[in-house]
């Protein structure tokens, strides 16, 4: 990166505030795509999205249209979805199965699931050409690196940089927490992906996920509406379904949120402690606990259920709510548009009731008819509008600034409402954007 570009990036981020251009400047966005999304580890999908040989699922990293393909065994490949012949997209559905070989619809070039060339028609016509001499180059290009952690597949377009596990660091807890709640340590995807476009810069989403001040403000309407009906049900029937609590919990006052803890890690990952009382003592939960105790022993079970993680943000592409088995991935489209992909997972071997409970969260909070994200997306769009104006240059991240502890590259706060997650993310943002290699 040229020196003036580097100093430009550094000039946008101060420890307690960020210049609005970080959100509103299309040139900055192009640099983010090149320096962050097309370099670091980005979420591809879950291995159970492609259970059988030849199964594929399309997704995007930065500007690159990719396809995640299951090989003949356990292996999972991530390929550029492009035929080396004339550039045509080989896999045409969002997801499907490639049959015996991935086949280009234009001239029937065929590829093994790992992308290598299987055959071309009229091969004699290539005799003595550079094609014949370099057949190995005529496969669908594979991305530089594909690695998995507990079934969650990540890809990197850059061969350099830390391995996935090292890069995830403490944020691994997102996947440990979700998988350990299964007595066999595995989750499988619920085969449905909700997709919603946010009319805002991708960082609005990243910052919002651990922003503990916004829920009781942004989601006040739903929180109060759900609490009202929840009280009515309790009055009439003596009990209320747990899923009402998923909505009424948004009325939780600031003071309670502030009792949570936040942490920020190198590479921009951040965590927020739990708050929803997601370890109730109803019969379904107790049945689940019993299964976990049988599988892991009492002590290990307590370690697993005692983690108290509400939300983990794995910068820059996913937000994981492990106690509810939800994952949201974002795919930036432009500086003011972001696609989100929303998934739900089933704990293999856990009681059906645990799945159904979290399914309510998926339906009520994360579906395209969400009663929660409706107000988030509205706020972020209005934020994008404001940051495109000349009404002011800076975004404030001052709350609890100066009270974070900072050791070994980790930031910690005992204030759940601290703007630590935003400060931690921008610290990583500068590192990504100014990296020389």
């Amino acid at each position, binding site marked *: 990166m040229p020196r003036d570009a580097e100093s430009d990036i550094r000039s946008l981020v101060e420890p307690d505030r960020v210049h609005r251009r970080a959100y509103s400047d299309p040139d900055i966005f192009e640099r983010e795509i090149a320096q962050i999304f097309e370099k670091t580890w980005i979420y591809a999908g879950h291995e159970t999205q492609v259970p059988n040989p030849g199964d594929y699922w399309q997704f995007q990293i930065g500007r690159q249209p990719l396809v995640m393909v299951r090989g003949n065994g356990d292996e999972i490949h991530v390929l550029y979805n492009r035929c080396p012949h004339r550039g045509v997209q080989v896999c045409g559905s969002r997801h499907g199965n490639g049959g015996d070989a991935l086949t280009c619809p234009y001239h029937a070039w065929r590829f093994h699931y790992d992308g290598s060339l299987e055959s071309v028609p009229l091969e004699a016509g290539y005799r003595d050409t550079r094609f014949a001499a370099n057949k190995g180059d005529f496969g669908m290009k594979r991305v530089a690196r594909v690695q998995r952690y507990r079934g969650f597949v990540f890809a990197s377009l850059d061969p350099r940089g830390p391995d996935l596990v090292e890069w995830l660091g403490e944020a691994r807890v997102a996947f440990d927490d979700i998988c350990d709640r299964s007595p066999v340590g595995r989750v499988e995807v619920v085969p449905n992906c*909700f*997709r*919603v476009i946010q009319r805002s810069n991708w960082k609005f989403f990243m910052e919002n996920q651990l922003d503990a001040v916004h829920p009781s403000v942004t989601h*006040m309407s*739903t929180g109060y509406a759900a609490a009202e009906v929840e009280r009515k049900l309790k009055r009439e029937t003596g009990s209320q379904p747990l899923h009402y609590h998923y909505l009424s919990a948004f009325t939780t006052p600031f003071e309670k949120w502030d009792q949570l803890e936040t942490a920020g890690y190198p590479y921009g990952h951040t965590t927020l402690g739990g708050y929803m009382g997601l370890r109730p003592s109803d019969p379904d939960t107790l049945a689940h606990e019993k299964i976990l105790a049988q599988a892991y022993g009492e002590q290990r079970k307590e370690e697993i259920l005692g983690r108290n993680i509400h939300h983990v943000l794995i910068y820059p592409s996913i937000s994981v709510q492990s106690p509810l088995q939800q994952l949201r991935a974002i795919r930036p489209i432009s500086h003011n548009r972001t696609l989100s992909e929303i998934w*739900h997972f089933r704990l293999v071997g856990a009681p059906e009731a645990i799945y159904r409970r979290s399914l309510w969260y998926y339906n009520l909070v994360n*579906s395209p008819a*969400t*009663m929660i994200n409706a107000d988030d997306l509205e706020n972020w769009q209005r934020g994008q509008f404001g940051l495109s104006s000349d009404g002011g240059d800076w975004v404030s991240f001052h709350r609890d600034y100066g009270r974070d502890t900072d050791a070994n590259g980790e930031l910690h706060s005992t204030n759940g409402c601290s703007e630590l997650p935003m400060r931690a993310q921008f610290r990583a943002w500068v590192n990504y954007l100014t990296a020389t290699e």
Partner: protein
Amino acid sequence: MAEHITAASGADLATYHDVSQFLFQQSHLLDSKRWQDYIDLFTEDGLYWMPPAPHYTTWDGTPSIFIEDRDLMTVRMKRVSHPNAWSQQAEWATNHVVSNIVIQGTDAGSGDLLVQSRFHMLEVRRDDVRHFAGTYQHRLRKLDGHWRIASQRVDMVNAQAAYEYVLQIWV
């Protein structure tokens, strides 16, 4: 399919007219934002369901875009009616057109009338226009001389497309 055609042609004109008026009135309540009146069209155990894709045969244990009984519909109504429902500050309006009404027959067990129709809904929000279209499948029950909705399944052709913003209210 042939059975459906037989059943449809067998429905008497008065029922067809009656059901058509009911469906038109339902759309009118939505377009007029008369939420409580809309909810009151549903039976006490009525359900509004929008599956994520046409192949879903039950909402029970599977993901849904909407799955709401009258209580959850009431949450949604109270949410959009709350003065601090920020997303409602944007001016918005809808226009539904319902057509292709087919009376498929009567459910032998419940006696409910099974009705399929097609809808097209245009929404204006701020300066943006969105279109949603698809199929309604109603189970209608006559109570005290009035049709009520025992269940309404909504299959949108847009269901799996990426949503520009979200759906705030029933389609």
